[in-house]
């Protein structure tokens, strides 16, 4: 009897549920659009005054009211790049260890420890970076790098422990848990049949891993971009260790700046309209950069899908 009654309520509930999901989903789009409009309107003054020069000049002079975003943009991109160069290979190895090499108990323990890393607030990373990591870098790591590289241009300058390189390392540690836990899931999803056939054909562990990587490449790219978008917007930790100097230097040991660090540092005390507007334009710039990165990642994923023959 009950069964007979159900279809009508079922369709009605379905309708409500459908509506609910549509509203919730469009809410995200709405927030994004409103955010963009807000950023655009508040940075209008600076957009008008500096135009395209804003992206191309490296002046940041609140006294004379002249602003250019080049050094902040450069710092954001380079520190994120360093973070990804360190974090992606490391996460790959960690994920493989957890899935393939470690005994189940060890795997569970390490897995939890890594996920715990993700729960640490970024200000703690910043403080730790400034008070613990920076002195260690200044004393041991940076002089060592200078020595073995023969004072390469990348590692020139006095080892102060802070700067682009340290910021990159902190960022790498921060995004590591995100990337590695997603990669672990990806490797866990590789069907046993695939692994068994590889081993059955006489593949070594290393060769089997290559097969797994090939199988999971899409998920791995996805994991990388999750980490990337977290690294590019990270504020507090970077502010503490990047050095906060509006300059562009070839040396990674030199103090630099990032968009988020500039905002965190200067927003509270900026009172002149042009100054404020320039800061908001920095926010707009970050918005656009993140958007572009997302687009590129989607396109890249599509290409990979095609090449790998996955539908």
């Amino acid at each position: 009897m009950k069964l007979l009654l159900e279809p009508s309520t079922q369709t009605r509930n379905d309708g409500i549920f459908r509506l609910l999901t549509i509203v919730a989903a469009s809410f995200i789009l709405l927030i994004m659009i409103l955010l963009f409009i807000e950023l655009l309107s508040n940075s209008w003054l600076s957009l008008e005054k500096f135009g395209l020069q804003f992206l191309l000049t490296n002046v940041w002079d609140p006294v004379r009211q002249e602003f250019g975003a080049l050094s902040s943009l450069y710092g954001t991109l380079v520190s994120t790049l360093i973070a990804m160069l360190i974090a992606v290979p490391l996460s790959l190895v960690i994920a493989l260890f957890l899935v393939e090499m470690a005994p189940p108990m060890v795997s569970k323990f390490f897995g939890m420890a890594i996920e715990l890393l993700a729960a640490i607030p970024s200000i703690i990373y910043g403080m730790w970076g400034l008070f613990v990591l920076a002195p260690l870098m200044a004393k041991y790591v940076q002089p060592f790098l200078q020595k073995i590289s023969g004072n390469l241009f990348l590692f020139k300058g006095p080892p102060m422990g802070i700067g682009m390189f340290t910021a990159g390392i902190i960022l790498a540690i921060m995004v590591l848990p995100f990337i590695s836990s997603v990669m672990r899931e990806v490797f866990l999803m590789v069907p046993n049949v695939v692994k068994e056939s590889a081993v059955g054909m006489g593949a070594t562990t290393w060769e089997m891993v290559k097969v797994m990587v090939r199988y999971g490449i899409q998920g791995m790219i996805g994991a990388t971009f999750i980490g990337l978008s977290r690294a590019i917007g990270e504020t507090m930790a970077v502010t503490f260790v990047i050095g906060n100097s509006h300059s562009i230097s070839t040396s990674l040991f030199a103090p630099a700046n990032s968009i988020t660090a500039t905002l965190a540092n200067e927003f509270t005390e900026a009172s002149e309209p042009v100054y404020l507007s320039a800061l908001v334009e920095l926010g707009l710039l970050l918005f656009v950069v993140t958007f572009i990165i997302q687009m590129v990642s989607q396109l890249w994923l599509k290409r990979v899908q095609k090449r790998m023959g996955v539908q």
Partner: protein
Amino acid sequence: MRFRMFIIAGLALALSLGLVACKKQEGKTAKAQAKVINGAGATFPYPIYAQWAYKYEKLTRTKINYQSIGSGGGVAQIKAKTVDFGASDAPLTPEELNESGLIQFPMVIGGVVPVVNLANIIAGSLKLSPEVLADIYLGKIKKWNDARIKQLNPGINLPNKSITVVHRADGSGTTWIFTNYLSKVSDEWKEKVGFGKAVAWPKANNVAGKGNEGVASFVKNVDGAIGYVEFAYALQNKMNYVQLKNKEGKYVKPMIESFQAAAANADWVNAPCYYLVLTDQPGANSWPITGASFILMHKKQQDKKQARTVLEFFDWCYRHGADLAVKLDYVPVPEEVYNLVEATWKKEIKANGQPVWDK
């Protein structure tokens, strides 16, 4: 039986009515007593404002909400009239004040102290002249054993180390005072850099830290560093401070007395709208990098009672808040200065054409 019920019901009714009446009265008195003042602005004086507010609320039941959102935010909020008073570490220019119908007055005094990291040099023994300090920050003096530093410190064995210059990364009143001082003592600084809460620092061998603690940690970690922090911070963390040559050519140490000397020797009477920066003031004992933190209020007040409550609080801070300020290593405003300020209140702050302050 019925009669009894009646009585009980009647009693209950009377009781509840009485209670309601009592409550109403209580509400009225509570409303009359619990005044609330809202303020927002500078972060530097926040600890002392919070202490004053706490003590004052205990004494008078007047609650003061002070939000330390930064000087920029404080100025914006008072202009928008969302708060009763704003607070700023840097004074507003007379033009800006007139434009928005505001007055300002100094509330508490602080100072900035250069600190160094030089092993085997006794704390507080290094002497610097204004010109040398400016040239260090301009990147023109690069080594600690530079002839010009040596000349000022004949008894000290200065190391052959490069100087790392540390400054604030965040916009800050501390930077405003420090750079204001440098532009007063060095024409080159004035021309190349100027002063502000954030400036385009000369490309010397420099790093920037966030907040006083950021600057302090860089100075502590980098051998041969020089930085500048708030006086209270330097004192509480026992940092290696520097003696500075003041306007009269005397070397002074950063102490409460030397800051107060700078504030007392300053010419407040002739400063329009208290637009007076306490850097580089005359007087043999004056510490040269001193600054006041200011309160901003509207000249035209809507609510006379409320405005008076606000002024009463500041009056209490001036007259009874000095001990608390000194305890927190702030420098209280000298008496001659706050008498002047209260005279200004009488003259300038009005509600419906009537002066708010008539004491």
